[in-house]
């Protein structure tokens, strides 16, 4: 390879804005490759599982493209593995979006929908669309992980109706409050990190997360 920049595989498994994730990677010096090729995923220095859309449809697509084994291998390899938005939810065991669907099961827990009727008078329209704050989960620190250097209560961009409920409280990296409900907006388990928000659309804060990822990949 003539280009010495570390490659990052962006798994092409769902309809979504892969272009802006690739642009964010390039901006911080990574060489992004949008792919569903098992060999390319195995060779990459890090892997991103993106995705917008419906959970069930995305899982069907992952199966149809024979991506389950490559994703499991990448997650088990110790290389940085990052889920974004639906890509975060897919890592869990099951979701109740349009029926109950099994997920990848790389992390323990499930995916449920916001309840728009929950609190009278509070802004709780579903989906949540817009900028909201992330804060460290109790007992968690962001030092040394992908949120390193991000100030607690920084604003990032969310676009979702469903959220994850990890079985292991220790996996919760960040929390966010919406409509009076506190939920898990980022997880970390070993080499696997995932964000419910869109770092690629979160302005300078989001690019700082990509920069942390680039450091991790080059390390």
């Amino acid at each position, binding site marked *: 390879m003539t280009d010495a920049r570390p490659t990052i595989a962006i798994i092409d498994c769902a*309809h*979504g*804005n*892969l*272009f*802006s994730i690739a*642009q*964010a990677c390039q*901006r911080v010096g990574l060489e992004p490759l949008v792919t569903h090729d098992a060999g390319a995923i195995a060779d990459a220095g890090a892997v991103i599982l993106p995705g*917008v*859309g*419906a959970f069930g*449809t995305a899982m069907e697509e992952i199966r149809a493209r024979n991506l389950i084994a490559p994703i499991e291998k990448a997650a088990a390899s110790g290389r940085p593995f990052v889920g974004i938005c*639906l890509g975060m939810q897919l890592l869990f065991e099951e979701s109740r979006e*349009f029926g109950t669907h099994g997920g990848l099961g790389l992390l323990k827990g499930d995916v449920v929908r916001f309840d*728009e009727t929950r609190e009278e008078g509070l*802004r709780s*329209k*579903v*989906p*949540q*669309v*817009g*900028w*909201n704050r992330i804060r460290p989960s109790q007992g968690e620190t962001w030092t040394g992980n992908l949120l390193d250097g991000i100030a607690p209560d920084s*604003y990032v*961009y969310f*676009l*979702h*109706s469903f959220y994850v409920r990890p079985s292991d409280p220790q996996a919760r990296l960040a929390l966010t*409050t*919406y*409509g009076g409900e506190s939920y898990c907006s980022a997880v970390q388990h070993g080499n696997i990190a995932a964000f419910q928000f*869109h770092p*690629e*659309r*979160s*302005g*300078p804060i*989001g*690019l700082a997360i990509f920069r942390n990822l680039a450091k991790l990949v080059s390390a």
Partner: protein
Amino acid sequence: MTVRLIARLDIKAPNLVKGIQLEGLRVLGKPELFARHYSAEGIDELFYQDAVASLYERNSLLDIIERTSREIFIPLCVGGGLRSVDDIRVALQSGADKVSINTAAINRPEFIAEAANMFGSSTIVVAIEAIRQPDGRHLCFTDCGREFTGRDAITWAKQVAASGAGEILLTSVDRDGTGKGFDLELIAAIAAAVPIPVIAHGGAGTPAHVCEAVTTAGADAVAVASILHYHTIQVTDVGTSSSHAHYGHSARGVQPNSVDSLKQAMAAAHIPVRPAVTDHD
């Protein structure tokens, strides 16, 4: 959760344009330059509308979307001329995060559910262009307010939400570009009728207008155009010479304001906003 301030850019490729009541479009400059300026100022989201797409049945913004996405890392919604799931897929692949549909949804309401199932509800915005009638009702139009659809805006909004749309972009066509303030009755009626976010658009002339769309009418987000564009033309060299003439000619009701001054006014009105960005990339 914060209330979003969205910059709406009506584009007749390759130019940013602005009219009054969606008509009489004048060229203001290059949309990418305005978008860059708003992003640096801390705008929460960009909305690109192909101003002529429905006339030609295609969206001609793909190059502009792609150029914007290479350098701007905030959300981008794109509307105009999107008639099929393939059109949506191409817009998303070019760098849009969300798409807005109007005519195609009116012509074939099942399209909303098809698109939501494939791309996720949160990706699908339905645009409603409403015009207030002498009897006080609001009726839906397409093609920049030219084609009457026979639909009542509130009834249609409920159907849109039930079909799986993620947001409603609600334009008051009779207020667009006038600076006379939003149609608060229309916004309040629809914001109360649907469980999904409603973006108010059409009529912002002052910071107070922006605030009352939220505090009085209950909008979840506010989209503005002239108020920001004319400010940009005044304080930067981004605009074209004809844009100055346009400003003098047609925007008497509009008080030009920056993103920051609008957000400060919102914060002063106790509206939660994302603070302006200081840490530029």
